[in-house]
């Protein structure tokens, strides 16, 4: 079976799961339930797709299969923003209660942060991508520490709210935010389209890419901005969820066994959707909200990785 067929099959599974999620046990007030479910599934699809997409591009830029956009420090920054708001204004403040304001503010700060970081680092000669990652990691750790610092100072009830923000949750996503996210993602994709052809070549590494005529710094900087925007949108929409990318993209590479980014990106988006929609379905219908989707995905992903390790082991 070649990678094209596999991609089509993945698309089929993703679609089937989405439909299952929308239509499963659909009774009672359909006019109320159906639109709510569609919004929810849209949010899941957007998040899964955006994270898978961003992680694929990020891994290609860095030529590294274990790095995800979380090393840019974006989800740490998100947690810092949330905790800071609670610390200063309290959990009952308008910024915390009104999800639109919170969303817009988080997204703006995260994107601004990335732009400032890139601008600062790409200025001058030191345009080394690993230097950027190092700074991102250090800042991420700093944000984490600062978050913990504020968390221990606030009221225990406020602390619960702050902690709750640390788990990705799709249960109370507002529909306006979903529409807004769709808009931002479409803009990012349109911008991405000009750079799409470079991805296969970038995967060869910097020297080969430059040899083949890619304006490396120019292209990589713009791709990094797209990665930041997509990550920011997904994080602001449902919470820190970049862990999903590592799993999804590695599974995609393992499953498709090709280098062609057109298929890798499509397939990773589908696998991202399958993982999130499937996970959410299990959370809602089997565990009846007793657990979070992060737990399910990490569990299944962990099992898959152990399987990969065992399989690799045998072939030695």
């Amino acid at each position, binding site marked *: 079976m070649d990678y094209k067929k596999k991609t089509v099959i993945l698309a089929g599974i993703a679609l089937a799961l989405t439909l299952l999620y929308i239509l499963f046990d659909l009774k009672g007030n359909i006019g109320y339930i159906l639109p709510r479910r569609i919004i929810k599934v849209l949010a899941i699809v957007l998040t899964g797709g955006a994270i898978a997409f961003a992680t694929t591009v990020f891994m290609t830029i860095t*030529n590294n299969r274990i790095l995800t956009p979380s090393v840019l420090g974006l989800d740490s920054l998100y947690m810092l923003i949330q905790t800071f708001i609670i610390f200063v204004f309290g959990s009952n403040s308008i910024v915390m209660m009104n999800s639109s304001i919170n969303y817009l503010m988080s997204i703006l700060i995260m994107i601004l942060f990335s732009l400032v970081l890139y601008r600062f680092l790409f200025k001058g*000669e030191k345009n080394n991508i690993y230097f950027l990652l190092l700074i991102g990691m250090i800042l991420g750790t700093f944000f984490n520490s600062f978050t913990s610092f504020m968390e221990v100072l606030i009221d225990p009830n406020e602390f619960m709210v702050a902690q709750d923000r640390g788990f990705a949750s799709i249960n109370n996503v507002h529909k306006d935010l979903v529409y807004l996210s769709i808009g931002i993602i479409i803009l990012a994709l349109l911008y991405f389209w000009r750079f799409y052809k470079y991805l296969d070549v970038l995967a060869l590494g910097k020297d*080969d890419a*430059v*040899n*083949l005529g*890619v304006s490396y710094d120019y292209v990589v900087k713009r791709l990094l901005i797209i990665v930041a925007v997509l990550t920011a949108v997904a994080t602001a929409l449902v919470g820190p969820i970049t862990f999903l990318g590592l799993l999804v993209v590695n599974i995609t*590479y393992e499953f498709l*066994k090709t280098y062609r980014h057109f298929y890798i990106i499509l397939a990773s988006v589908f696998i991202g959707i399958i993982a999130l929609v499937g996970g959410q379905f299990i959370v809602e219908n089997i565990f009846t909200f007793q657990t979070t989707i992060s737990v399910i995905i990490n569990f299944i992903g962990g099992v898959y990785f152990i399987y990969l390790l065992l399989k690799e082991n045998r072939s030695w």
Partner: protein
Amino acid sequence: MVEVKNLLKTYNHKTVVDDVTLKIEKGTMTSFIGPNGAGKSTLISIITRLIAKDSGDIQIDGKDVLKTDSNELAKKISVLKQSNSINLKLTVRELVSFGRFPYSKGKLTKEDEKQIDEALEYMELTDMENKFLDELSGGQRQRAHIAMVIAQDTEYIFLDEPLNNLDMRHSTQIMKILRRLVDELGKTILIVIHDINFASCYSDNIVALKDGKIVKQGRACDVIDACVLKELYDMDIEIQQVGDKRICVYY
């Protein structure tokens, strides 16, 4: 013609390329020799825009390298670096196809396919074109990379130690192919090489570098000289004339 003027590159106060000025004629094969750390690879990387220079001037066919559009430049010069650790699931043919990227941006035309076929044939890789790179031996992989550079079909070809990991048979095979590229297709080849006998036997000109400075540049027979090599490697090297070839005995 490749013209380099007063090229300078320092890393943390250590000068790696020190005021290098050289001229490479079209249609020749030039070898860069010298001990480890002489700045050969850095020099090649700077000329081919992989590394930024500190100062100096590089012109290829009268045009400043840094001011030329990168994609246009990729149709004129190609470069292959020492370490080729690609960890993608790529077949030989797919790798070679990348050489056509500057022309077709990933959508291969008939002309591209023809060039790829020729490059594969040149490097005798046709029968293993569908093998994955990670199934190949080091030497075969090296040949696949050179095939990619050949498919790129540029006037100037820069190779950084292309004989790494190759046995004698494949080394001579590659040097003969490079020679053919120069003699039959009129390419200009610049090559970093450690084995001075290969440099002596196959290249037209040799540039000898030490500590970032040019010790001597000129025709191969002039540089392969006991005095020059003594200065370059700090060891006594005897030179024997075998047929029309000058062979260095340093064992």
